[in-house]
């Protein structure tokens, strides 16, 4: 298979402002053009937009606004993991030879409709994500004796990391005590354990090995991809692990001929604090019973290996942009260009993006 890499990227600031989706997508796309050497509109074969927004024909609109006349253009919607799935589509177009250079632009507005899956009748009246977040949390507490403090450490760590991310919506540091005493949403979830929807856009330029040298001297290669969908309905879920994450990561590790021990840095889908603990277990980055201790050690030693950009909890969660923003962070880490967030000597990184209580998961592995 052709080697395919990341040739350029751009991102808006994530905010709680109401901004039209077209404006957001154009802003991050303009940054790709501004920051990528030798890039011109005629070199782009494909434009893929990832979003949960109800607006129509967004890839054609973005193409027109940015002066691109692509051979391939369409939208990808897959709830919270729309961004990583759009990148997987772009990768596939290039791998197949249908395209050589593809722009992926992801974005959502703060009021986007992707937060509730109305189709899922199994959730009854409890269809907001806080309910599955609470049940995952309660189950983790019951099964692994996870404490409120251990959950709060996830949020404290990620809010702290987000301070050094200029695009994050939150730049507030919170103590463990402040998080543990923040407003209760349910008996098992506090407000500072939650990620929040916001407005934002992130864009990536993908190119084949033959072409990428034109755009960058430091390409980052996509070496592994795994995607697994078990269902759309929450109630069918196994609460003990993120089973789709286990399967997606096994496929990604296998494709990249690597294993969890070789991952230097990872962006993890921390929709709620408990998700980070479950994800590091399911990705094999920690042992099953040791995820809380693993995260505590990172926090105590100021090690930014997990969620250096602040994760969803610290950076914000504009659904269609999230997976792309995660990939940009790992790209910057592997290019040794993450400034204050830099994890030393990072050579191999992982992105974990999931949807609807991990009824589906995507895992992407990048290498320098």
């Amino acid at each position: 298979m052709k080697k395919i890499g990341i040739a350029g990227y751009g991102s808006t600031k994530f905010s709680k402002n109401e901004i039209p989706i077209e404006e957001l997508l154009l802003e991050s796309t303009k940054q790709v053009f501004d920051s990528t050497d030798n890039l011109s509109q005629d070199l782009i074969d494909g434009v893929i937009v990832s979003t949960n927004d109800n607006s129509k024909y967004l890839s054609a609109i973005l193409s027109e606004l940015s002066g691109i006349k692509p051979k391939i253009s369409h939208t990808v919607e897959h709830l919270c993991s729309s961004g990583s799935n759009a990148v997987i589509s772009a990768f596939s177009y290039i791998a197949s030879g249908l395209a050589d250079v593809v722009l992926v632009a992801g974005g959502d507005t703060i009021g986007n409709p992707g937060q509730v899956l109305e189709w899922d009748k199994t959730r009854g009246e409890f269809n907001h994500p806080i309910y599955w977040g609470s049940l995952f949390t309660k189950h983790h507490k019951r099964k692994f004796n996870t404490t409120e403090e251990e959950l709060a450490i996830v949020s404290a760590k990620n809010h702290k990391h987000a301070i050094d991310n200029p695009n994050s919506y939150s730049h507030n540091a919170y103590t463990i005590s402040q998080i543990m005493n923040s407003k209760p949403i349910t008996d098992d979830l506090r407000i500072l354990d939650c990620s929040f929807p916001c407005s934002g856009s992130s864009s990536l330029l993908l190119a084949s090995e033959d072409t990428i040298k034109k755009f960058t001297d430091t390409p980052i290669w996509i070496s592994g991809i795994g995607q697994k969908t078990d269902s759309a309905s929450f109630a069918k879920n196994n609460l003990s692990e993120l089973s789709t994450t286990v399967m997606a990561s096994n496929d990604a590790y296998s494709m990249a001929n690597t294993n969890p021990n070789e991952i230097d840095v990872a962006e993890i889908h921390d929709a709620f604090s408990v998700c980070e603990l479950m994800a590091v277990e399911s990705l094999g980055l920690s042992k099953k019973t040791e995820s809380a201790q693993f995260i505590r050690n990172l926090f105590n030693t100021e090690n930014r290996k997990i969620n250096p950009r602040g994760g969803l909890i610290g950076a914000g969660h504009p659904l269609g942009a999230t997976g792309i923003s995660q990939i940009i962070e790992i790209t910057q880490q592997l290019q040794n260009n993450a400034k204050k967030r830099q994890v030393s000597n990072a050579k191999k990184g992982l992105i974990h993006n999931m949807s609807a209580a991990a009824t589906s998961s995507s895992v992407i592995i990048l290498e320098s």
Partner: protein
Amino acid sequence: MNKFETELLNGNFVISNCINCNQVVWPPSNYCNICHNETKWCDSKQIGKIIEFSKKNNQYFCLIEIEQNLRVLGEVLGETTPKINQKVQLKKCSYNKTPQFMFELLPN
């Protein structure tokens, strides 16, 4: 509204069963997701067990397993703290933009 929703409005929890392999197809669908044969409407069983629960304000919300392929999120009525694997009985169901399932605890 479809039959599932109108039946819920009438207080009946109906599910779909495959006419060929007799599997419960949940959420309801016109076709079986195993053999792709047509389904028929059947009354759901009324007894389930609690898989997990939490609480918002004074309302217990629970993941309840009625049978192997049939789980729902519903409210467990009352102030008694539920227990994992405790049996529950469907007390009431309805529909108001979303399905609503209300259960009561049964002594184990």
